[in-house]
């Protein structure tokens, strides 16, 4: 059975790139456009991994990560933070919120896929 990945991303093009990438690699993909939708989606169906954009409307990636990691049934789900502004301290902030890995934008889909495979092994 293929693994399920939740992509939390507000930008249509980025979602499509990830969709094309993940489906071609035989992953099942769930989509959410902001933090709140992400919380609804994980409550409905538990993903095996989450790709979390940090700059999100309504509820940002840090807060969504904190809430997901606070849920005992979900805290084992690995979360990869994706942020557009790769500044010193962003990685530390993402890790403090509970993210398991950190990918600065613009990421190479190829490298991201390698990271996903490693975390799901």
């Amino acid at each position, binding site marked *: 059975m293929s693994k399920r990945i939740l992509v939390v991303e507000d*930008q249509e*093009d*980025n979602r499509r*790139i990830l969709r*094309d*990438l993940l489906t*071609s690699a035989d992953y099942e993909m769930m989509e959410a456009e902001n933090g709140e939708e992400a919380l609804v989606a994980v409550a409905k169906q538990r993903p095996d991994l989450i790709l979390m954009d940090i*700059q999100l409307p309504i509820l940002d990636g840090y807060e969504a990560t904190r809430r997901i990691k606070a849920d005992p049934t979900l805290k084992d789900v690995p979360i990869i933070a994706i942020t*557009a*502004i790769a500044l*010193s*301290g962003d990685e*530390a902030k993402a890790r403090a919120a509970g993210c398991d890995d950190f990918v600065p*934008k*613009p*990421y*190479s*889909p*190829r490298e991201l896929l390698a990271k996903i495979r490693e975390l799901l092994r």
Partner: protein
Amino acid sequence: MQIMSALVGLVSRVPAPVHAKLLAAFLAIAMLLIMVGAVGLHVLSGVNQRTEDLIKLQRKIEAYRQVQHDTTSQLYSVSSALLTSDDLTLSSTLRQLNQFGFDVDRLAFVAKDEVELLGRFRQDYDRFVDVVTRVLELIRGGHAAEARQMQLAQAGPLADRLERLTDQLVNKAEADMVAGIEASKQAYATSQWIVIAFALSSIVLALILGYAISWSLIGPVKEIEGRLNQIAAGDFTKRVHVINQDELGILAANVNRMCEELGRLYQQLEAASKHKSQFLANMSHELRTPLNAILGYTELIVDGIYGETPDKMQSVLKRIESNGRHLLGLINDILDLSKIEAGQLVLALDDYSLKDVVYGVCSAVEPLANEKKLKFKVEVPPTLPSGRGDERRLTQVLLNLVGNAIKFTDTGEVAIKASVADGAFTIAVRDTGPGISPADQAKLFQEFQQADNSITRKKGGTGLGLAISKRIIELHGGRIWVESSAGHGSTFAFTLPVAIEAQARPA
């Protein structure tokens, strides 16, 4: 001291210009000098008066002594004349007696205060002259025995009294003289104290006045100077508090106005700078989002996610990808540089291992060196102290230097050498590239400068890498430099403190 500061405050509050205050102070001091002079003159004239009095007394004593002497000689000549009973001698003696009476009368004008005593003397003298006249008449009448008896009974006691009276006159005058000298001494001592006290109080008053005036000027000047120092140091929050209502008060008000204006401008500038860097951050985000999509789609196409692509298209797609990455590098560098320029690049200080930084950079660039068939050497001491700084930024600097070295070297080798001495790390990147002429070396670390524009076009690069590296090293309190000569390769090196506790202020 409290009284003094109150006085200084009082002088400060006087609503008059500084020159008027100074003029008033000088006038006051001049008045004090005049008063001291007047008191001195007054005392001097008193001393003069007393000296004249003493001279008068001296003359009186001399006159009385003369009277005493004359009286004694008159009495003697009378008694001897009476003994001879010679009529001619007696008549001349009587004349002399009367004449002396007139002399004593004249004396009465000199000794006004002893009129009573002199009166008694004059009375007794007249009676004496009377008695002598009667005795003379008795002698002329041939009554020698009666004359003799009268002389003994009446003239003798009168003569004794006259002698006593003259003694009294002299004694009294001498006593007056002694008292006068004593009084003069006392008066002199008193005057001396008055003059000294007056002079001293004048000095004290002048000093107090001088203190009050000078501190009412120095105090505000010091206060304003202190504030100007703070303003120069960039603190616009405090104000000068000067109570003076003179030129200094106006100056202080102007300083406050200037400080307010500067503070307002500074705030505006700060806000503008914040807006600028916010704008740059937003713009770079906005630019990177579509670029991210372009690069992502391109990579997916290259990786064959959307199906097989012909070889010809593959090479074009690779060009799109590399140009896109170059554009991304430019955007990132401009953002970095503008953040540094705005003083908003904050170093994330943490412990790091220089060894890890060097080997991390090596593993990232080794494929590039291999691709160009360059020898790649790394020299790191087996033990290095743990450093403290921004590991990511230092990696960025070293990556830039090594990347440049590989980019510009076509044959030979690139070597990285790390060392530690005197609490500072030194990292040198040496290459066997074309080298850089001294004129170009000077421009290397400025924005958008590369040694040779044709190389830039051929090799790519934003021209911002070294400018950013220089600023990052400077924020770490270090220094970056280049040693090179055209045709003999280049060595780029930087040194920085092993551990920094706070980032240096940008120059």
